[in-house]
Each structure stands twice: as C-alpha cells, then as structure tokens.
C-alpha cells in the first residue's frame, strides 16, 4: 500500500484548539501543517480607538492561562510610549504577580497536561485515579500560584488590580503573610516536583534550537529585559519590529514569526533556561543540577523538568520579594499620554510576549501589535514534528498521532492565545 489516510480528531491537553495535518505520500512525509485559526488580529483591531489605559484589561482577556503576561507586556509598552518606567516596590509587586502566574500555569502543564505522556495515561483524569498524590501536589502548587495572583491582582484569573503605572490598590504585608505561608509549602512541593520529573523516561531526542528569550542584568528575566538569542544576537525591545517579522502562511490564520529573516526559532522555558540559567535562584540552580540538567537543554521532552525548575525559582523569588517588600509611596505612578510609540515584552510562561502601541495626541490607541509566544513557536513546533515523524512513518496511525501530540505538548502551546480549534489529521496515502 503506498497511500493511506488516517484522521484523528481532537488534539487534547493543549490550551485552546487548532488542527494538525500530516500528509504522507508513498511512505514519505509530503506535508506537515500545524493550522491555527486565529481570530485574525481581532484584539489588535479592537484596541484601536480605545484609551491608553485600557489595554491591560482588554488584552488580559486573550488568555485565561496567562492574563498577567498580557497585562505586564501591555503596561510596559504603554509606559514606554509615555516615557515612564515603573521601578522599586511597584516593580517588585509586578514580579510577584507574574511569579504567581508562572506557578499556576506551569503546575497545570506539568501535572495535568504533560505528566500523563510520561506515565502512560491518556489524560490527567486517568492519572488522578491512580496517582492521586501526584495530582493533588500539582493542584496544591497551582493553588499557591492562584493565591499569589489573587493577593496582588484581586482575583486568581484575569486580575483586575493592574493598571498602567502600577496598581489600583497595594496589598499590605499582613495580607501577604498567609500567601507566603502557602508558598513555603509550595517551594517544598516544587523541589519534590523537580526530583520526580527528573526520574521520568525521556525519548533520546535533541534539536538544534535557535533560542530566543529576554535577558535582564539583575534577574532570570521574566518581567522585562532586552531580547537575546542563543547565537549571540541581542537587541533592545524597541528594535523588535526590525528583527522579528511576521508572515502569513496559507494554512493558518496565525502569523509565522521570523527572526532576522529566518523562521523556526524557539521561545519558552528551554530558551530561557539556555540563555539565563546562571541567574536562577540558588535553590533552583541546585535543583536543576540535581536533576541532571546541564547549562542548556535541547531535548523538548525534558521541558517538564525545566518548567519544574522554573516553579522552584518562582516560589523562591516570590518568598524573597515578600520578605523584603517595602510599601510603595503610591499604588501607581502617574502616566500621562503623549503621541508616541511604545514597545513592551515579558516572559509569558510559554515564551516572550511582545506588545507595541502607537498612541495619538488624544491618548487613544492608533495602532496595536501583539506577538504571542505560541505564534512565534509555531514554525519550530512544525520542525520538531517533522523530525519526530519522518523516521516513524510506518507506525500505525494512532501511534503516530499520539507521538505528534506529545511533540506538540512539549511546547505547551497556548493556542487560545493565538488560535481557536485544534484537531489532528493524519492524511497518509
């Protein structure tokens, strides 16, 4: 038989929905397309004509998993346009909020979405039935993240306390005490998570990734920094449009990103770890070393270990910040609009999230541009898929489909940020 057709619907355990098609002809891979049906630039269009104060709340709606990332990139882009930089305790509070989101998002992915792949379960639910201890640990970690986000952001999902210039209200030390208490337990659970994740079986795969992440002189970059790549390219965030271009591809309504003309770079935990692992907190560095991670990890299956290390870092840093936090003079610094363009980027759990706003003299948004990490990673995820699929085209369709799903889940694509429906079709003839 030279031609066969296999169709698998419903790619599971990814955030959001999209579609993947493999075309196999005469035993060779003739085409591979990760299709993302993005509501084309809906939010960017929606933002035009809105007040400069609105993007943090509007763009937070793009994603239920990483609203803080949207808020932070949006705030910083607008503040940059207005010539304001938020520093000191207000910046620390932003970091705290962001660490909360990392903990929430990573705990969900590690335990409920990614772990079943390694332990031979079809879902997090099936895993919970057998390994209640593991799933409860994941949920406890996630809850610690939710509580941190709620304490700073006003509620655990889609925080309402963020504004351009800072916050509407700043929590007092007493409000943070129970959060810190839970974070201390979470830190132990995070360390146990790294140990457990390191003990999983990983396929022996390495890809020659071109990494892209923010880099910050004083911290493992999460809230801000300049853009760095593994091959030595570096540029400030305001030069993003000169380096990162987006192009339409026929099979997807999400745009494919190119870095200096080359498609297929990787953003996200592996990139952050490769570029910045020396800046992890001492506990996280220790955990990484104990887990056998070198300074760079090119095996996407091991991203579960890197995410776990990042949870340790987030818990440890959040505790340090709470311990050292001083009260800001005001919940926000004044930000007056002016006709200018501002760029902002931060490290969403899934990778670098870039925002650009052009403000008119009336303080209204004339133009908005948002580049989410999953859209940046889409071409690279396709490359991972090609590498995994090509030598295994003779596998039965369902096994091939399962392998594809794993290769996609390694990168925790948040397709709801950039897409709508995800079904998997293997069209082999």
């Amino acid at each position, binding site marked *: 038989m030279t031609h066969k057709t296999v169709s698998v619907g419903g790619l599971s355990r990814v955030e959001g*929905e999209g579609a993947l098609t493999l075309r196999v002809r005469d035993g060779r891979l003739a085409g591979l397309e990760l299709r993302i049906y993005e509501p084309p630039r809906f939010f960017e269009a929606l933002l035009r004509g809105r007040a400069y104060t609105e993007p943090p709340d509007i763009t937070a709606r793009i994603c*239920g998993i990483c609203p803080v990332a949207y808020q932070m990139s949006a705030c910083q882009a607008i503040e940059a346009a207005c010539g304001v930089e938020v520093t000191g305790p207000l910046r620390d509070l932003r970091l705290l909020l962001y660490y909360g989101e990392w903990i929430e998002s990573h705990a969900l992915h590690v335990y409920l979405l990614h772990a079943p792949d390694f332990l031979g379960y079809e879902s*997090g639910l099936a895993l919970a039935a057998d390994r*209640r201890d593991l799933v409860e640990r994941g949920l406890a970690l996630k809850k610690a993240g939710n509580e941190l986000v709620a304490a700073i952001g006003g509620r*655990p999902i889609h925080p309402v306390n963020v504004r351009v210039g800072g916050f509407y209200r700043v929590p007092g030390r007493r409000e943070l005490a129970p959060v810190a208490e839970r974070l201390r337990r979470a830190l132990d659970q995070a360390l146990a998570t790294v140990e457990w994740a390191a003990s999983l079986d990983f396929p022996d795969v390495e890809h020659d990734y071109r990494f892209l992440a923010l880099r910050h002189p004083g911290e493992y970059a999460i809230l801000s920094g300049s853009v760095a790549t593994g091959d030595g390219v570096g540029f400030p965030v305001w030069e993003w449009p000169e380096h990162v271009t987006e192009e339409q591809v026929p099979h997807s309504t999400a745009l494919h990103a190119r870095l200096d003309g080359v498609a297929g770079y990787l953003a996200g935990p592996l990139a952050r770890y490769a570029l910045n692992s020396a800046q992890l907190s001492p506990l996280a560095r220790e955990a990484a070393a104990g887990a056998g991670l070198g300074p760079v990890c090119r095996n996407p299956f091991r991203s579960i270990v890197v995410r776990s290390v990042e949870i340790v870092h987030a818990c440890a840093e959040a505790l340090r910040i709470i311990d050292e936090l001083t009260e800001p003079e005001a919940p926000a610094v004044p930000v007056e609009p002016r006709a200018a363009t501002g760029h902002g980027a931060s490290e969403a759990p899934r990778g670098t999230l870039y925002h650009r706003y052009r403000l008119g003299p009336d303080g209204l948004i004339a133009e908005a541009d948002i580049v989410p990490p999953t859209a940046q990673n889409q071409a690279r995820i396709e490359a991972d898929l090609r590498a995994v699929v090509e030598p295994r085209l003779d596998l039965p369709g369902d096994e091939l489909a399962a392998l594809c799903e794993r290769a996609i889940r390694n990168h925790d694509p948040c397709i709801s940020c950039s897409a*709508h429906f995800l079904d998997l079709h293997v069209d082999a003839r």
Partner: protein
Amino acid sequence: MSTPGRTVVVGFGGVCRGDDAAGIEVVRLLRGTLPPQVALVENRGDAAELIESWSGADLAVVVDAVRSGAPPGTVHRCHALAPGAGRHLGSHGLGLRDAVELARALGRLPRRLLIVGIEGADFTLGAAMTPAVRRAAGALADELAERFTRPAPKAEGPAEGRSP
C-alpha cells in the same frame, strides 16, 4: 474555603466569546440577591479552580454555556454525580466535565452537584450574547434567587431532571 453546609453557584465561561458568557451573566445577576451562605463565583474556565470552589460544599450549581444543537436559550440540567454526566462542549483546555471527573478521582466532589447548561448560538470572539440566551440567563437567575431566598426548611437545587 470549604465550609460544610454551604452552597456555591459558579458561572463558568469566557466573557468575550458571545454566548460563552451565559454562566457568568447568571452569577452577575445574582449578586446582591442571595443570603451570605450562598457563595457566588465567576470562573473563566479554570477547572482546577472549580474544584477548589466546590470542595466541601453541600450543593454546587455550575452554570455554563453549552452547544448541543438545541434552540438558543434552551436550559439543560443534570445532576452531575453520575460518571460521565455533565458533558461540556465549550472551548476550554480543561473543561467542566474534566473538573467533575478530576474531582471524582480525587474525592473532592460536592455532596450535590447540579450542572445547568444554557444553549448558546454564537461563540464568536467579541460577539454580543444572543437575546434568547440573555433571556434564559435572566430567567435562570430569577429562579435561583427565588430558590435560595425562599424560607424553605432545606434548600434544594432548582428544578431537577436531565436535559430534554
């Protein structure tokens, strides 16, 4: 978070995808109308948070938008403690049904769980709620408000029975 004997009403869904906001709308309409032992929660699609909300509750009512092919505004109800009940047809990564099954596996279901699905028609990003769905949300909020404020000896969930 889990007070024995308490009731929680959760609106589940997104607010910028048209009729997906039906559950959230019900909770918003209920604000200020219920006694303090009835907690109101807006959940934008976080299954784990849902489990936290109902852990230890006596009765949880979860209102979500559904898509089954019925006319818009049709209200489906099911008691979700039977395995496989409460199938969720929304667009969330881990949905309501996942939350029910996960809570079951973890022994963290509420004592009684009523899932109310409001049939939606338009889930487009940025769409307004369909008038029939908005009316259904209003009627359901009225029904729940009446049920939970009525001086009855024991609060029951709203009208029972499976979806048609």
